């Protein structure tokens, strides 16, 4: 699955996802990716976010919408992402998931839920401070 958030130099935001879902799903099953607020969300007045992982769990919590709302409330993107993960963790401590967050001012962050087989999450960033797309890693919480 890819989830992507873009902040244009004019401040316009966009977000998107594309996936073939989870392996061996029951035909007809749809995860979080095509659901606004779950797989991704964008709002010029705050920022944008996207989620990845177990879509059946993620879409119950609208993590991308929630992250954008945390940023609207003043949270740094990294903190907004972490708060979203912690909310889900309360109900599903073993869920597989990660969130990327970007605010309209160009700051960004990510967070993931720590599992024995998933301790770090990799994501890509490109902005005017880097010459090329840069891989970033975040330790899961």
């Amino acid at each position: 699955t890819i989830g992507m958030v873009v902040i244009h130099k004019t401040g316009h935001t966009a977000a998107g996802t594309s996936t073939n879902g989870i392996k061996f799903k029951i035909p007809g099953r749809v995860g979080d990716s095509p659901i606004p607020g779950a797989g991704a969300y964008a709002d010029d007045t705050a920022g944008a976010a996207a989620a990845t992982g177990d879509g059946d769990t993620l879409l119950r919590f609208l993590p991308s919408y929630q992250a954008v709302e945390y940023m609207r409330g003043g949270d740094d993107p990294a903190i907004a992402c972490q708060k979203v993960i912690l909310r889900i963790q309360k109900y599903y401590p073993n869920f597989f998931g990660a969130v990327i967050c970007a605010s309209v001012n160009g700051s960004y962050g990510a967070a993931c839920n720590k599992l024995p087989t998933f301790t770090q999450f990799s994501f890509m960033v490109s902005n005017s401070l880097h010459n090329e797309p840069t891989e970033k890693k975040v330790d899961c919480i």
Partner: protein
Amino acid sequence: SSPLPLVVNTWPFKNATEAAWWTLLSGGSALDAVENGCAVCEKEQCDGTVGFGGSPDEGGETTLDAMIMDGTAMDVGAVGGLRRIKNAIGVARRVLEHTTHTLLVGDSATKFAESMGFTNEDLSTKTSRDLHSDWLSRNCQPNYWRNVIPDPSKYCGPYKPSGFLKQSISPHKEEVDIHSHD
């Protein structure tokens, strides 16, 4: 200096980031960047979790989900369970631009895509067929059924309701596969 514009995407899919970035530098909009970035992953079948030829369902078919959101107009286009069309994010963009709906699903989404000029083609590959054959040979493990007969932890379907609901202590029974995600 301002860090804008900015592109961030999940997982280390560098070519997707690059495509989005160059779209912005070429004068494209934020929506153009998202569409082009995700489309690169669909073509490259990033990680086997994006695009055709990955994550077959129980029947062995690959179906696609995609969504694109304009944070200026709060407008969204999305497709779910899209069959036989490779460029799911492109179809989602057409839903956004050419309809007042938000989400189209299944065969009807395919018909919509065809009407928008997308090609109807098989999404399966040798890789997806092998994945499915291997899953069948492992008695359809893992799967996502519960409270059905025959016992889904041991046997393939077809399944029927078991007549009783067993309370699940943990809803996540299987090992996490980081190459199987939404």
